[in-house]
């Protein structure tokens, strides 16, 4: 039998709607459509919850129409409506959830609330075919090293303060880099022409990492040393990437050594960074393992991953009642019972 799910995602500045089909005879997963619209703010600024929610409200219906048109399906074909329950920014989450609830009532279809992080993990596993990897989930709002054990994705290490993507985004603002397509992408490009390595704090605490001190420090030296010409913005981008990615690769390696896994899966927006992927491959290569990563279509927030993870749960009998379809900004990866894995 063919099961079809539509997924709505809007936990940060990306609004995404995707439609996915699972075939339970062949086990095949087919992506029918994956539409995204991003709220991009001027250089030097970040995205605010209120404006981001307004962006999502403005664009959700056209994005929905596009997704349905591209998938060439009718409403009747859809089995379930999935939406991001959290974690994320409150207002953007709520603005998208209300659309999911409305569709559920209008079309008389069941709802499934999905944990955003689980969406990333399941999508990454599906696209890359990684079986039981250590997952490095790195984005603007999350930084976690995760491994699956006994029906839960367990968090081995995480950030103690800001997420790695947030550190990069905020440093991009200091340098006035463009937010199009994303601040992290522009830092990555600038870093390629960086020459001098500037020593920054290196903060690994047990299995956890911390970025806020590094950000304060580099903001400070950016002010002094850029003005005096001691270094270039490119050097700073280069040094920042080298330092924080080394921290991430180190904690990932420790998790691999601890659980005895040979696979690493990188998911989340920062996961598209080719330098991070390269460093990870060097580490994993030394251990004789394999790195799995996806490109921007699946790394960056999207509706497909919500549809996919939601459908996995739905097929094991999980649904979210209308009265429980609220959103939550705090929703940890390890709170979700993973009924669909052994």
């Amino acid at each position, binding site marked *: 039998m063919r099961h079809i799910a539509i997924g709505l995602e809007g936990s940060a500045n990306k609004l995404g709607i995707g439609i996915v089909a699972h075939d339970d005879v062949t086990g095949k997963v087919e992506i029918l459509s994956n539409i995204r619209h991003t709220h991009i703010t001027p250089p030097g600024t970040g995205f605010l919850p209120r404006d981001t929610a307004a962006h999502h409200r403005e664009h959700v219906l056209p994005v929905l129409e596009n997704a349905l048109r591209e998938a060439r399906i009718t409403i009747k074909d859809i089995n379930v409506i999935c939406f991001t329950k*959290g*974690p994320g920014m409150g207002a953007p989450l709520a603005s998208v959830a209300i659309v999911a609830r409305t569709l559920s009532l209008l079309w008389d279809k069941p709802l499934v609330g999905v944990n955003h992080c689980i969406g990333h993990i399941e999508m990454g596993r599906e696209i890359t075919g990684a079986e039981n990897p250590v997952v490095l989930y790195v984005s603007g*709002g*999350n930084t976690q090293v995760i*491994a699956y*054990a*006994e029906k*839960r994705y*367990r*968090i*081995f290490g*995480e*950030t*103690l303060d800001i*997420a790695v993507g947030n550190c990069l985004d905020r440093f991009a603002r200091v340098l006035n880099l463009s937010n199009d397509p994303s601040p992290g992408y522009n830092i990555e490009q600038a870093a390629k022409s960086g020459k001098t*390595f500037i*020593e920054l704090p*290196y903060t*690994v*605490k*047990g*299995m*956890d990492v911390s970025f806020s001190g590094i950000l304060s420090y580099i903001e400070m030296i950016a002010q002094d040393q850029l003005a005096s010409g001691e270094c270039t913005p490119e050097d700073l981008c280069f040094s920042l990437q*080298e*330092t924080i990615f*080394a921290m991430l*690769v*180190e904690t990932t*390696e*420790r998790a*691999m*050594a*601890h*659980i005895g896994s040979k696979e690493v899966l990188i998911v989340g927006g920062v996961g598209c960074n080719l330098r991070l992927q*390269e*460093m*990870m491959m*060097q*580490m994993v290569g*030394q*251990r004789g393992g394999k790195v799995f990563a996806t490109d921007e279509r699946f790394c960056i927030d999207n509706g497909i991953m919500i549809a996919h993870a939601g459908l996995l749960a739905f097929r094991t009998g999980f649904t979210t009642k209308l009265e429980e379809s609220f959103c*939550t*900004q*705090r*929703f*940890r990866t390890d*709170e979700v019972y993973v009924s669909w894995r052994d």
Partner: protein
Amino acid sequence: MIDNGVLIKQGAEARIYIAPFLTRKAIVKERFSKSYRHPILDKKLTARRVTQEARCLYKCRRSGLDTPVVYFVDTENSTIYMEYVEGKTVKDILQEQSDDDEETSRLKNEEIANNIGIALANMHAADVIHGDLTTSNLLCRDLTGSLVVIDFGLSYVSILPEDKAVDLYVLERTFTSTHPNSETMFAPILEIYTKKYKDSGPVISKLEEVRLRGRKRSMVG
């Protein structure tokens, strides 16, 4: 490569060999450079960690904690030679337990928890922070049953309750993430630790705080 060495483990930080050292069987821990790290950063981290590790091992041993004896430190080659301990890791012991009956494993767990609690109390009383307290870094000596703390690769000296609390928290998380069936073992460890370590008060209250960190925790209740 280590002369006459047999590679037994490639850890995250170092290669571990068994090799003869003078007349004894020794563990040789050679930190290797990480090609993914920028050379400047790599050199700084490696050098810092070798000396720190040797110092912390020695400091713990001197204050009565059972740790491998340091034989020789070769800073040029980032290598430490130390005693070979015959024993099993707590991780393996816990994972093999499914064969035991309930009562046997309960008694075993009780003893292990007791030993871990005492060891951590001694270590923290000496102001050594381990930095990577997992069940793979705790051994039970075959001969005496004594609990040996190994791998001081990320350890450092600190008097702050904060650092000691993070140390305990890392261990607590290992129990929840790797040994979901032995989660209950952490409470007795903490109990013994509190009893044996006279300055544990501030550490325990800090631990409460540390547990609340991490992002996206549910704040209900």
